[in-house]
């Protein structure tokens, strides 16, 4: 694998495109130039920081460092899922259920990949574990937050319909079945779209990166297929776990609808 090394000059030349965007914004009065420059600067700083952090963690060769970094990344994802919905749980309930969903979905899929398909030595080798966890977490975050947001807003909106069923003696699960199903579908849909578009409409990022870095396209494709399966599994797990845990918190031992637990 021979990556073409990038020199600072190469990067500086591509940065001229950002300058072009800024000039465009000024000329067309888009009023975006500040945001463009600021977000470009942020992106550069964040990526350089993570690059050095990863280099440092890789050099440590210590499973604890790998685990610590993955846990921090997972916690950030869980927090995003919990706070993003418009209607959300009071207190720590949302965070507890999103953490559970993120942890299970990520650990199951990443462990599956590390122990069967990729099998680095040792299996917790930071280069593999952290990269895989990072990609999987992106999917888990996306599907979990879509599913949770969809469930909480649809249950709030459909309160009269749910309570009409409860009032006639339906179980809480029967009364909300269609809404949960819809929420999980909503969570998984982006992954399905991503899979069906892969290679035809888009060249997936990981694969493109590997090809640019000099890997044979067919080898890169194999990696991408494996990753897509991981992402599909992770987003399904994350959407389903988070939706069902949230549903459990929306009812109680008398199978009432407890919207008072949301704010």
């Amino acid at each position, binding site marked *: 694998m021979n990556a073409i090394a990038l020199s600072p000059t190469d990067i500086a030349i591509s940065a001229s495109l950002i300058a072009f965007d800024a000039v465009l914004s000024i000329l067309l009065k888009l009023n975006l130039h500040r945001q463009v420059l600021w977000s470009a600067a942020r992106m550069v700083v964040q990526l350089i920081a993570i690059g050095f952090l990863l280099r440092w963690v890789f050099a440590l060769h210590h499973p604890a460092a790998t685990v610590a970094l993955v846990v921090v990344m997972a916690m950030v994802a869980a927090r995003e899922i919990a706070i993003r919905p418009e209607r959300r749980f009071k207190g720590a309930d949302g965070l507890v259920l999103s953490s559970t969903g993120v942890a299970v979905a990520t650990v199951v899929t990443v462990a599956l990949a590390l122990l069967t398909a990729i099998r680095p030595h040792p299996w917790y080798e930071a280069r593999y574990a952290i990269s895989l966890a990072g990609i999987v977490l992106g999917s888990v975050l996306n599907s979990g937050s879509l599913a949770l947001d969809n469930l909480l807003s649809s249950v709030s909106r*459909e309160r009269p319909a749910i309570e009409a069923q409860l009032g006639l*003696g339906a179980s809480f699960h029967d009364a909300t079945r269609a809404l949960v199903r819809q929420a999980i579908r909503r969570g998984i849909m982006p992954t399905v779209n991503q899979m069906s578009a892969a290679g035809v409409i888009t060249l997936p990022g990981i694969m493109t990166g590997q090809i640019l870095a000099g890997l044979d396209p067919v080898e890169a494709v194999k990696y991408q297929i494996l990753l897509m399966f991981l992402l599909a599994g992770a987003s399904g797990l994350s959407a389903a776990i988070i939706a069902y845990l949230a549903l459990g918190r929306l009812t109680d031992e*008398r199978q009432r609808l407890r919207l008072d637990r949301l704010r």
Partner: protein
Amino acid sequence: MTDPAPSQTGLLIRRLQSPLAGPFDFAVPPGGCGVISGPSGSGKSLFLRMIADLDPNDGEVRLNGTERRALDGPAWRRTAPYVPSEAGWWLDDVIDHFAPATREEARRLAASFGLVEGQFDAPVARLSTGERQRLAIIRALVLDSPALLLDEPTSALDPQAAMRVEIALQARLAKGCVIVMVSHDAGQAARLKAAAYRMVERKLERAAPPEAQA
């Protein structure tokens, strides 16, 4: 807690309360009807929802001797179904809201409520408020339960349609069913030979019977 009247039948409510309303003590004999009136926001719907156990609450509720707590939530609500004043619908077509085994009875009731046959097969969105209200009552009636909790069941109906619903309710009362309902129609309580109550600021009081006022 000892039960002072183990043979007690009908609906018996003691110290029913929630952070929002109560405590309520309330009883309806079998085949009896309790009608609650009172200003909006006074807690009438809250009271029915508490009996139905749709909002968190404490207290004793017995129906024909069985304590509510002995049943799980859905089983209790099948015994005492609750129909809100603007009941929700969860599927597109009216007919799908009825279990196949209850559809025949539901059609019969719909006809007796003055709904034309086609309305039973129509999409919910095409029905008027009054049609929906009658069909929502039918959803509860087909359960053939020993009690009914009805929140303003005839508020959107013209007097004739309201009368048809009352006839069905009278038939239930004659079979021993207990009915608790919220209604602003003073004549309705009289026609159903109901005990009249007033809800004032989340407290329930027995309304003076019309004769006593005269």
